[in-house]
C-alpha cells in the first residue's frame, strides 16, 4: 500500500514537471534553449578546455597539493 502511495507521489511529481515543460509558452522554450546552450558552453567548453582545476590536474593527493602551495607561499 505504502509503495503504491510512493509511486503515485513520484508519478504526480513527474507529471507535474512533464506537463509544465510540455505546455510551456514559446518564450519559456526559448529561455530553456538559452539555458542549455549556456550550460554546454560553461561546463563542456569552458570548464574542460579552458578552466581545469590547476591543483587537481597537476597533483594526485592533498599532501602534494599542500606541498606545492607551501612552496608557493615561501619561495
Amino acid at each position, binding site marked *: 500500500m505504502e509503495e503504491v502511495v510512493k509511486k503515485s507521489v513520484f508519478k504526480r511529481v513527474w507529471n*507535474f*514537471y512533464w*506537463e*509544465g*515543460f510540455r505546455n510551456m*509558452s514559446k*518564450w*519559456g522554450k*526559448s*529561455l*530553456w534553449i*538559452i*539555458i542549455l546552450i*549556456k*550550460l554546454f*558552453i*560553461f*561546463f563542456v567548453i*569552458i*570548464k574542460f578546455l*579552458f*578552466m*581545469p*582545476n*590547476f*591543483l*587537481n590536474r597537476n597533483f594526485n593527493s*592533498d599532501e602534494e*597539493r*599542500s606541498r606545492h*602551495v*607551501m612552496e*608557493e*607561499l*615561501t*619561495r
Partner: protein
Amino acid sequence: MLQSIDWSLVDWSRAQFALTAMYHWLFVPLTLGITWILAIMETIYVKTGDPEWKRLTKFWMKLFGINFAIGVATGIILEFEFGTNWSNYSWFVGDIFGAPLAVEGIMAFFMESTFIAIMFFGWNKVSKKFHLASTWLTAIGANLSALWILVANAWMQSPVGTQFNPDTARNEMTNFFDVLFSPVAVNKFLHTIGSGFVLAAIFIIGISAWFLLKKRESRLAFRSITIAAILGLLASVHLVLTGDGSAKRVAEVQPMKLAAMEGLYDGKEGAGLVGFGILAAKEKREAETGEEFIFKFEMPKVLSWMAYGDANHFVAGVNDFKNGNPERGILSIPEKMQRGGIARQALDDYKRAKASGDTARADSLKGLFSDPEFLENNFKYFGYGFHDDVNYFIPHVPITFYSFHIMVILGFGFVLYFLIFLFFASRGELQKRKFWLRLAPWVIPLPYIASQAGWVVAELGRQPWTIQDLLPTVAAVTRIDSGSVIVTFILFALTFTVLAIAEVKIMLSAIKTGPKNEGGTR
C-alpha cells in the same frame, strides 16, 4: 616571490575575475529583490482574491523568469576561476570557502529549482496557498544562496573564526558561527539584499511608467508603482542605515579602505565627511599645494562621528598607514612588512625543519602558529611579507573615492525618487506627471551603476588583498601562462556580452507584449 612573478598574469587574472563578477552581478540583484516583491503581490492576490493581482504577479514573474534564466549559473565561472587562476588562494582559504559554498550549492539547487518550478508550472495545478508558499520560498532560497556567498566574501574582508595550519598550508575553521555572524558578514548581507530590493523597485517603476505613458494597463501599472514605491522607500532607508553600519565595520577592520573611500591622505581629529569632491592629481598634491582636493563639499566632523560615534575622534589617513603614526598606535607599512616577513620565514623554516627530519625544531616552529603573541604580532601581517614596495599595499584612491561617492549619492537620490512617486501615487496624479513618467525608464540603469560601484569599493578598496592582510593577489595567483588568461578573458567577455544582449532583447520583447496573455482567472 617577486623575482619570478609575471605581473601581467596577476593583472589579467584580476581583470578576468572583475569582468566575470561584474557581469554576474548584472543578473543577481534583480533576482534577489523582485522575488520578494512577487511574493508580496501574490500575497495580496491570495488575500483579496482579485484576479488583477494574479495577472500582475504573473507578468512580473515572467520578467523575473527571463532574468533568472539568463543569469543562472553565470556565477559558476567565478568558481572555475578560483580553481584555475587562483589555486594558491583556493587552497589557502581551505574549508572557509568550501563550507559556505557547499551549503549555497545545495540550497540553490533544491530550494530554487523546486520552488521556481512550482511558481511557473503550478498556477491552477496546486492550491493558491501552496503556490504562494512556493513563491515565498523562492525568495527566501534565492536570498539565502546570496547569504553564503556574502559570508565567504566577508571572511575575505575580515578573516575570523579560523586558524592557519602550517602542515597543510590551509586555514581551518575553528568557529562556524564566528564566520557566519561576523559583523562584516551580517552588514554585507543586509546591505546587499537591500540593494536588490531597491533595484527591483526601480525596475518595476520604470516599466510601469512606460505603460502609463503608452496608456496601456493603467491599473496594473498604478498598482505596481504603488507597491514598488512603498517597498523601495523602506528598502532605500534600510540601505542608508546598513551602509552606515558597513562603513563602521570598514573603519574597524579595513581602515585603509575607509581612508581611500574618503580621499583622506592625512589623518585628523574631527574629520569631515566629503559629500562630493574632485581629487587633486597625485603629482600636484605631492609637489605643490599638499591639498587632497581641487574642490570639495564637506560636512565638518561628520566622518569622525559616523565612523566612531565621536565627532572629535581621530580618523587615520592613507599616509598614517603608509608611514605609521606611533602617537595613534598605527604601524607603518614597512613595519608590517618586516613582521609579515618574520611569519613567512617561520613557515619556510618549519617546512625545511620538517623535510630535514629535525623534529625538535619543527615542533618549536609549529608551536608559533598557535602562539597568541606570534599570531598577533606576526602572522596577522603575513601577507605584507610578500612584497617589498610600500605603495603596493595602498589601494587606488581615486577609483575607490569616486565609486563610493557615486554609490552614496545615488543611494540618497533613490530615497527621494521613491518619495516622489509615492506622493504622486497617493494623490492619484501619476498619469499627469509626464516628466517623471518619461524619466522613470531611464532611471533603471542607475541602481545597477550604484550596485556595481558598491562592489568596486568593496573589492578595489581592499587591494592588494584577496584575504585581508594575509594573502595578496601576487601570492594568490596560479603561475600559468598569462596568454591563456587573456584568451579566457576574451571568451568570457564575448559570452557574457551575448547573454546581456539576449537579456535586454527578450526582456524588451516581453515588456512590449505586456501582461495581455497572463490569465487572471480566479
